[in-house]
């Protein structure tokens, strides 16, 4: 029996963007504190918690809870808090070449919670109905049932909103995903273009797959489609594609307009919680978690207008210590509350990945030697 189940259950019964009043704050803090306490069943994690400058029982605000850097999950065996017989699957981060991917152990309860949470958050942005779903990716991207990657996790998170799921991408010899026009045209023939359709793909995959259609000025005429995409902007920034250009170009090619193209942020370490852009272009933490943007010098929460390191919190995990995680992404606090979209809590924007840390100078030798050994 999970000790924090009551607080978590209460929060999961709430709307995904319920008012952030005092009782919510209390409940969220309690759920996170209890979740961290539960995770301390792992003796190695317990050692980490023991050394946190503020004892867990004395923490009075979410920003003071012990957080782990996400890089702590790049270990083998994975950092888990349930025995292996209870693992239902292991999620792996996409990782960049040469990097060890994060490994996130998922058990049944975490899986249930993450499905429920992700569905509630997405529903707040695109509605609850199930609709034909077009995935701009290769079907192999989903991966095996027991172990899958970030692309597969995102696709699975959206399945509650889709039926007649069609994959219209295929991996070319170069490794790039290209559009399979035959499958796409077949999908367009089968479904009414005036009805809601859900389209999903990784940001850079959508761009590369649709680039030719965009250049040719095509319009697929899917007026009621929602295009959801995730996975980061690094590849497109390198190609000088801004979010505005992406939304306009993709919205025009699909036929739904830029407003229905929604970028969302998610990471396997924060599974079950997604951060779609609101109409104001901001992101918001849902009822089931919190976001703290930290000043890198002091690690204190950043003020409005400041950029810092993004920390994400989640009440969902029961199988890995992912309740408070410091990401390697930078974010800017846009507003402390009262975003124009009506969603409560902090409004923030991602500012990209923190530049990679390098051990510099003539004292950098052992890190490299250790890494290569």
């Amino acid at each position: 029996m999970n000790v924090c189940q009551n607080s978590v259950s209460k929060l999961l019964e709430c709307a995904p963007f319920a008012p952030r009043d005092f009782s919510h704050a209390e409940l969220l803090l309690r759920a996170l504190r209890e979740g961290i306490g539960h995770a301390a069943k792992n003796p190695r994690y317990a050692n980490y918690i023991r050394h946190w400058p503020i004892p867990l029982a004395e923490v009075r605000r979410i920003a003071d809870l012990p957080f782990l850097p996400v890089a702590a999950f790049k270990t083998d065996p994975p950092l888990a808090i349930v025995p292996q017989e209870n693992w239902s699957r292991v999620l792996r981060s996409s990782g960049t070449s040469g990097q060890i991917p994060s490994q996130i152990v998922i058990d049944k309860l975490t899986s249930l919670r993450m499905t429920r949470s992700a569905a509630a958050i997405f529903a707040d942005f695109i509605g609850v109905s199930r609709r034909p779903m077009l995935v701009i990716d290769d079907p192999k991207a989903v991966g095996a049932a027991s172990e899958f990657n970030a692309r597969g996790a995102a696709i699975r998170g959206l399945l509650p909103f889709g039926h007649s799921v069609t994959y219209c991408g295929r991996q070319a010899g170069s490794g790039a995903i290209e559009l399979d026009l035959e499958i796409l045209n077949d999908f367009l023939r089968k479904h009414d273009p005036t009805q809601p359709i859900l389209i999903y793909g990784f940001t850079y995959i959508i761009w590369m797959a649709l680039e030719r259609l965009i250049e040719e000025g095509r319009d697929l005429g899917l007026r009621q489609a929602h295009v959801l995409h995730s996975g980061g902007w690094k590849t497109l920034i390198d190609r000088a594609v801004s979010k505005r250009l992406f939304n306009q170009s993709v919205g025009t090619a699909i036929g739904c307009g830029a407003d229905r193209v929604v970028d969302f942020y998610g990471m396997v370490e924060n599974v079950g919680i997604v951060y779609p852009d609101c109409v104001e272009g901001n992101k918001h933490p849902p009822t089931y978690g919190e976001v703290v943007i930290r000043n890198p010098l002091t690690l204190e929460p950043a003020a409005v207008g400041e950029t810092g390191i993004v920390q994400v919190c989640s009440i969902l995990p029961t199988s890995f210590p992912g309740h408070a995680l410091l990401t390697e992404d930078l974010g800017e606090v846009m507003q402390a509350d009262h975003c124009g979209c009506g969603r409560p809590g902090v409004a923030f924007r991602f500012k990209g990945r923190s530049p990679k840390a390098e051990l510099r100078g003539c004292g950098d030798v052992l890190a490299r030697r250790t890494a290569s050994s």
Partner: protein
Amino acid sequence: MSKLTLLSDSDEILPLVRRLRDGIARETPLSTLIEKLASWGARLLASRTGNVPGAAYLSMWLRRENLQRLLEADFGCAVSGMLGVPSAFPKEPMGNSSFIKPVGIVGHWTAGNVDLQAVLSGVCGLLGGNANLIRVPSDQRAHIEPLLACLAEDDSEGALSSRLAFISFPSDRVDLHEAMARHVDGAMIWGGEEAVRAVRALPFPSWARIAVFGPRYSLALMDALTWSNPATRKIWCDRLARDVWLYEQRACSSPQAIVLERGNEDPREFVRDLADSFRAQNKRVPRRLMEPADALTVLKARADWLLQAQDHTAQMSFAPDWTILVGEGSALPQAAQHRTLVVTIVDRLEEFVASLDGVTQTMGVAVADAEREAALAEQAALRGVDRIVPIGQMHFFNSPWDGQMLVKGMTRTISYARSRHQQEA
């Protein structure tokens, strides 16, 4: 010309090289060079350069006595002769003789982590009688320019500045690095593994003398008697904190770990005192800025350490200001830098020292028994350690460094055998 030249085209190197060759041709007595350097050092203190990081240290380092010590370390008793007539052919009755000459133009590629390395390295080249083409990393220009302005005020006749050319260009301008390399007769290369490998691959003339400094690892060592004494322990902890703070632990002489010998006292007493010293040092020299990536490096080092083993402990500030990681073991811990020190507790220092290899540059020591310390130094030297100095003096820049003579390394010992004895002539 004592100013920093910003290069944008490789053609701009040739005029600088010509000027430097002219500078070598006009032989200046070593004693004059030393006087001029000492005078520059004194002026640094008196001028506005006091705000330049390390200016006070540089001023002290440029004192006549220190420069003479540096030369004595390299040339021994021959220095007195060199100070009189630095490069004239010795008039010896013997048929064979040898004498010292500069290699010519020395190129200096310095690390981005040590603010004054461009000046320190250049002065070493200068003391060997060389002309020096010194690349200043872009982010150090603001520090170096006031120092050069100060030199210009004191060196109107150009005794020093005719042999010094400070240049700067972006590190990714391979064409400029190559042009620089083609014109030098020797190179002093400082930096991390990647930088050193890239510079070594430049098209140096086949005869060029190459000296590489770094990348290396440094650590401190303390015996049980020393840290068990509360009176002296605090002093050593303060010294160690200063060594950790200087250069943000990015120098090859920066301690990344302290190896502590197990004793009768609880090592937590030592760690507590060390944490106090770190706290005090942080108050004296607080960090003004931290890149997110550097903060993440510190936080990852903390998490990795504590998640690695249940008996690993730590003392740290909430902010990524400073971190002390404590554990047992014989392996060299990974360098995290950014004021992160690993305390490794071992049974016997001798066993630990026996496991060292050539990656270790400096071993800061605090050992109560002089004979034992000497034996440890001997053993460490055999294993590849190049500097064994007291804790608190780990960064003191002197010769030899990295096992090499800083001045002599960029000189040539000329052998000259007369064709006929005087009586035959």
